[in-house]
């Protein structure tokens, strides 16, 4: 290296976040003594405008060719300072960040130790930056097509918004119809508008929109490529019904001899083996559930009842799963939530007593198109005179899910209202805290209070039976009195939990998960819709429990994220990728199977491995495995990393 190395070091106070524990001026003074350092300064907020200007000026006036900022985690501000360097004409990769906040001031008690640690981190960064090389970002084109996975309200909203912008969108839904959980609800809090009335028009719009291709009974199997250029493989499960021929007349469902508990009705009613999940389904055409269809389960003697009654010949038992591929620039995952199974806690009596049901079952019970045509009755047909609603079943409980499921308080208020409206019963809500956090929610709570619902502040601890009647045991904590409340019907408001197949889905799309199992957003506040994989966005309850307004807002937001990528038309590709020195590569092929992205191939002619830089994500797995030192990830070369480690440890 011929050019003289001139480094500027900037130590940030981060208000009091760093300065409380780290003596920032002392660290700057120390840094100014280090080799190649031309200037070292400390400043209140390096990320502020004046802070950035400081660096810019120094680069120009002092002819700096390397910059070190000692501040926070690179996650948020590495791009900020990289841009600062670039705006002053310096390649953004000739810059290094030392994290003296998360790694130092926030986790070190003793100010003296913290200061010493900060010095070591800065020393290491200075030594490392010497070995940095200018790297250049490349641009790749963005495919304007978009994929939405999951046809609940969040996915529906996203698909409609994308389509309205004129982009093509494929909506992939696992079940035979879109609609998701919202389709199962009766009325919705806080306004009590009918769920189907506001959802169905949107579902129909999806079916009618020219820009939307709807694939129901389908699942994504594989995602290849990278932001802007994904190639997605989708499995269309054999529906056994030709959608082009089927008129949706429903005769097949009438005649089918096999009955199966209906998923949509939460087990309260039966459906047939050939079925449309609910009357407003989109598409309103059935699918054969091969697991239960007699034609498929019988070894001898076929059934063929539906085939025989179908007048248009739409039944096709020989249909096979079909794999289709779709190329798109961005993906929106909106796979929603599952519900906690309360039978794992026998104390709540679910599965042991007929008249202990879940909230979603009650939604179906009060619904006019539900199994009882909207009559709220006990199993034996009696109209309940006393009803208990238990909040927080499986939520806020370390034995099950420690998190709050957010929507259950409001849903419980809604159910209390509906229960009273339909039956005039005395209703008892057992709650721990009442969380009415949304717009109009507190007012809704007030309304329910005025309606005369009984509130018992204490979690329903146990449901048991006394003299043939259900009894809820709990403490009325506001009175400090133990109570046994006799009721006819118990509604358990169960936790929202990650979908049972969340692990698999996360893997397919390269999404991380938070401790609670839901999909993890890039930043809890500022990037709620992005994920660790560029170009893959999340919306709705797959990210965590939320109500319909929030799910819709996220669906629309994710559409905006995807569209902004598509509209830009091109995307920056990080230069931090693996590179192989062909002179050093021994051709051992160790690295080939290790790459999770299939980015390494073997050049048979030259007998060396080669990296496809567009596929490489720079994870470094290969570099760690290379025995001959031929593989390096740019910006994380052996030399750079080892120098940094040596300096951190040097005393």
């Amino acid at each position, binding site marked *: 290296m011929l050019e003289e190395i001139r480094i500027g070091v900037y130590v940030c106070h981060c208000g009091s976040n760093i300065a409380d524990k780290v003596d920032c001026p002392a660290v700057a003074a120390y840094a100014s003594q280090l080799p190649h350092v031309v200037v070292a300064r400390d400043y209140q907020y390096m990320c502020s405008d004046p802070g950035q200007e400081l660096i810019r000026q120094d680069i120009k006036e002092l002819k700096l060719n390397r910059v070190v900022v000692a501040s926070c985690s690179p996650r948020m501000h590495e791009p900020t300072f990289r841009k600062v360097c670039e705006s002053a004409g310096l390649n953004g990769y000739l810059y290094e960040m030392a994290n003296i906040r998360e790694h130092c001031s926030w986790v070190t008690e003793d100010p003296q130790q913290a200061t010493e640690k900060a010095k070591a981190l800065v020393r290491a960064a200075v030594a490392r930056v010497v070995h940095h090389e200018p790297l250049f970002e490349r641009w790749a084109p963005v495919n304007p097509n978009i994929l939405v996975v999951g046809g609940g309200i969040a996915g529906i909203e996203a698909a409609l918004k994308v389509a309205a912008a004129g982009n093509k969108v494929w909506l992939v839904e696992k079940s035979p119809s879109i609609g998701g959980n919202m389709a199962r609800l009766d009325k919705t809090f806080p306004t009590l508008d009918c769920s189907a009335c506001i959802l169905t028009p949107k579902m129909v719009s999806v079916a009618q929109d020219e820009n939307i291709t709807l694939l129901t009974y389908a699942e994504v199997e594989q995602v290849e490529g990278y932001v802007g250029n994904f190639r997605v493989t989708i499995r269309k499960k054999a529906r056994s019904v030709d959608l082009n021929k089927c008129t949706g007349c429903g005769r097949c469902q009438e005649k089918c001899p096999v009955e199966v508990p209906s998923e949509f009705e939460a087990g309260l009613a039966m459906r047939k083996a050939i079925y449309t999940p609910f009357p407003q389904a989109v598409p309103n055409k059935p699918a054969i559930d091969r697991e239960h269809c007699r034609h498929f389960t019988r070894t001898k003697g076929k059934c063929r009842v539906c085939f025989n009654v179908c007048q248009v010949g739409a039944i096709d038992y020989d249909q096979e799963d079909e794999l289709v591929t779709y190329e798109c620039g961005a993906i929106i995952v909106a796979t929603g939530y599952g519900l906690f199974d309360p039978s794992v806690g026998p*104390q709540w009596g679910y599965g042991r007593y007929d008249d202990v049901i879940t909230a979603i079952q009650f939604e179906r019970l009060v619904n006019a198109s539900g199994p009882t045509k909207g009559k709220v009755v006990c199993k034996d047909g009696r109209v309940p005179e006393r009803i208990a609603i238990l909040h*927080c079943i499986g939520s*806020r*409980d*370390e*034995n099950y899910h420690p998190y709050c499921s957010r929507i259950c308080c409001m849903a419980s208020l809604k159910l209390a209202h509906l229960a009273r409206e339909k039956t005039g019963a005395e209703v008892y809500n057992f709650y*721990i*805290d009442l969380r009415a956090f949304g717009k109009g929610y507190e007012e809704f709570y007030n309304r329910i209070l005025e309606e005369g619902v009984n509130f018992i*502040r*204490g*979690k*329903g*601890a*146990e449901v048991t039976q006394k003299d043939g009647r259900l009894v809820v*045991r*709990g*403490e*009325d*904590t506001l009175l*400090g*009195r*133990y109570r046994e409340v006799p009721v006819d019907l118990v509604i358990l408001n169960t936790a929202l939990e990650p979908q049972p197949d969340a692990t698999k889905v996360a893997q397919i799309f390269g999404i991380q998960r938070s401790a609670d199992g839901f999909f993890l957003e890039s930043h809890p506040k500022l990037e709620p819709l992005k994920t660790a994989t560029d170009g893959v966005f999340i919306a709705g309850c797959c990210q965590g429990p939320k109500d319909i307004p929030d799910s819709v807002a996220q669906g629309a937001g994710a559409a905006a994220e995807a569209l902004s990528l598509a509209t830009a038309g091109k995307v920056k590709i990080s230069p931090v990728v693996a590179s192989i020195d062909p002179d050093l590569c021994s051709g051992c092929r160790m690295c080939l199977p290790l790459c999770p992205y299939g980015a390494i191939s073997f050049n048979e002619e030259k007998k060396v491995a080669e990296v496809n830089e567009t596929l490489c994500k720079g994870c470094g797995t290969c570099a760690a495995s290379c025995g001959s030192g031929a593989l390096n990830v740019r910006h994380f070369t052996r030399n750079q990393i080892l120098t940094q480690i040596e300096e951190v440890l040097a005393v």
Partner: protein
Amino acid sequence: MSTSTLELLPEEGLEPGFAAQVASYPGGEKIRRCIQCGTCSGSCQMSADMDYTPRRILAMVRAGMKKEVLSSQAIWYCAACYYCTARCPMGIKLTEVMFALKSLALKEGYVSLKQHSPAFYKSFYEVVERYGRMHEASLIIGLALKTNPLDFVGLAPFGLNMFRKGKIEILPHGVKNRQEIKALVQQVQRLEVR
């Protein structure tokens, strides 16, 4: 409980260090996480007999109401059934807290050994301390001597029945190495000083 008026809670009567003292007992470390949900009280089959429900006892512990807690009847109604512990959503070992409170009430003299419950536990402890094992006859005698020897008479028919069924041994069959049990008790007393 039975007072008809609720008076101002006198701040000077509170012991802010009480929660820390209870937390230092085995299994007490999580009491500050209690969200006062009442699952414990709703699960406790003795709640209805207690002067304060288990949840309320915990709230009082945290408020520093040492005198009220340690002289309460509630703690002597705990049968150690572990329902509260099994169900507490915050992982609080309330059964262990109840043990701690009984132990503190005895140790700091908040209860009289004339009362049946404290006398029973204390007598039990003494028998085990002496023999290393339970010996029902010694326990009954110890209990009667502490409380009211006439109680013994009340127990006699049942005891006699037990004896007839071969369920009561006249002489204790204790541990052979009683020295070791004594030494262990002393070790524990030393470790318990706080």
